[in-house]
């Protein structure tokens, strides 16, 4: 027979999973958005990737098309995981936020569940797109790619936690929308998602410095390493970077959510 404490802990885990389940289900109810983003992804590969790769000197990047497809997967994962912040505003507008706060779920379960849910749904969504990328790239080192997938998982949760943190801290959907645009421009552009670090470095050493510590750089490099596009001296370093990013934003997300949300601070 199950001990009462074990039963209680199982109940609490179930609640966390239910919060995760809700966010995953919800995302796929926005069918139009999901389909349009998939079309955008394929167009980026079939049009932009194919055309732009002809501009790139193969002495700089031997196969820019593959390089770009890998980066595009990471960028898509980033923007899909960011979507959870927009959900918070949508929920605030429809009063669903109040409903969630009135449920027999702790604030920590709520924020952790939402962070995981936001990341997981992004991962599920990007899964088929990554499969397309792998088909296009054509080469995978299974062991390395398993590590890459793990880092993509953590990255998605981290981005989702970051999105929740910012959404709760800002409390204005317009400002959030604008900030997301700016962040996207800065975080993605100051990374190796679209170009190698050496090129960023040569454009401006400051850019290069920032890009070296950018989580998007870490996962983009790991993705390329897992698909044999580039080699890495020590893949554990970017993995560690992703882990720190995940841990930081999950922790900050919980603290800020707890502090600002409990008792109506979100109003």
């Amino acid at each position, binding site marked *: 027979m199950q001990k009462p404490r074990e039963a209680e802990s199982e109940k609490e885990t179930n609640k966390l999973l239910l919060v995760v389940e809700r966010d995953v289900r*919800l995302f796929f*109810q*926005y069918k139009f958005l999901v389909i349009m983003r998939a079309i955008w992804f394929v167009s980026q590969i079939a049009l932009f990737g194919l055309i732009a790769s002809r501009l790139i000197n193969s002495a700089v990047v031997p196969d820019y098309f593959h390089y770009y497809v890998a980066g595009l997967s990471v960028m898509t994962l980033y923007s899909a995981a960011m979507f959870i912040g927009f959900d918070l505003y*949508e929920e605030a507008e429809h*009063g669903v936020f109040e409903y969630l706060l*009135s449920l*027999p779920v702790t604030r920590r379960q709520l924020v952790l569940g939402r962070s995981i849910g936001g990341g997981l749904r992004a991962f599920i969504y990007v899964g088929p797109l990554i499969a397309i990328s792998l088909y296009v790239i054509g080469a995978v080192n299974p062991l390395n790619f398993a590590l890459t997938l793990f880092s993509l998982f953590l990255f998605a949760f981290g981005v989702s936690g970051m999105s929740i943190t910012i959404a709760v801290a800002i409390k204005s959907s317009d400002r959030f929308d604008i900030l997301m645009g700016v962040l996207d421009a800065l975080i993605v552009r100051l990374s190796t998602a679209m170009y190698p670090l050496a090129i960023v470095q040569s454009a401006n050493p400051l850019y290069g410095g920032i890009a070296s510590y950018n989580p998007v750089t870490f996962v983009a490099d790991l993705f390329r390493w897992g698909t044999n596009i580039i080699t890495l001296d020590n893949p554990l370093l970017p993995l560690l970077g992703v882990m720190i990013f995940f841990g930081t934003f999950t922790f900050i997300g919980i603290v800020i959510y707890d502090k600002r949300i409990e008792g*109506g601070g979100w109003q």
Partner: protein
Amino acid sequence: MAPIIQLKELTKRFGNVTAVDHFSMDIEEGEILGLLGPNGAGKTTTILMLATVIRPTEGTATVGPYDIRKNPDKVRGLLGIAFQEPKMLWVSTPWDIVNWHAKVCGLSTEERKRRVKDVLETLDMWDARRRNVHALSGGMRKRVEVAKVLIQRPKIAIVDEPTAQIDIVGKHKIWNRLLELRDEGTTLIVSTNELYEADRLSDRVGILHKGRLLVCDTPKKLKDNIPGGDIVEIQFESPPQSKIIDELRNFKEIVDIVTPEPNSLRLYLNKVEEFVPRMMNMLMKKSVPIASIRMTEPSLDDVFVHYTGLTIAEAQRGGE
């Protein structure tokens, strides 16, 4: 027996506006407490504080053994809420909403399926269970909101304006279900600005106005306590002149005269059987055209008028 909910000087201020002002009261286990008051009286804010969705500025409350400030998680474990405005995203379906709610409230799979079907059928929402919320009418959305609490059957249910936007048949179905819930042992707080609803459902009614609790008692006692327990409502064909109102005031039986509508007067009086013939004589002599006369028992609106000097409708309009 100790009350299941105790409000202790509960106060909420939003900037300079005091939404709830030192609200204290006890709620007994197994009763239905009606919170009656116009919009802006502080009912919803009180509910949100009890549900730990917003934090009181001053004071506190205990729900069961738990303080809402110190143990919000435990408090939420005892509560179920149906909000005034249905809280749902438009891409969801009624089934998704109530099913997930039942899951998160810990119902077993079998029990959940049984209750969801039972409640959605009772509220005539079974056939619409797979439609998106945006395709539902306001009344249907409200039914889904109430369904959450009916499925959950919590120890303490808070229902904010349970039948707003719902047709009369639907209202009766919801009222019956809420009464069943009470009979099964749930304590209910029903916030409403519908007098009949408060009267029909509540074991006790608390009247709120401008964030303050004015009075709380059984509907019968509240009505019995009004001086001039008989009521005569006169509907005139045009607004009565002030000299007619003055003449009416001269009758010794009259305790108070209220003007709920421009064309009507509500008289609170004693000895209605002696008063009405004399009043009719006076009005006929003065050729005052009368559309109808009705004698009624006092309603909760009369109680509200007695304590605030305003009808609920006037208070809704922010009248002084």
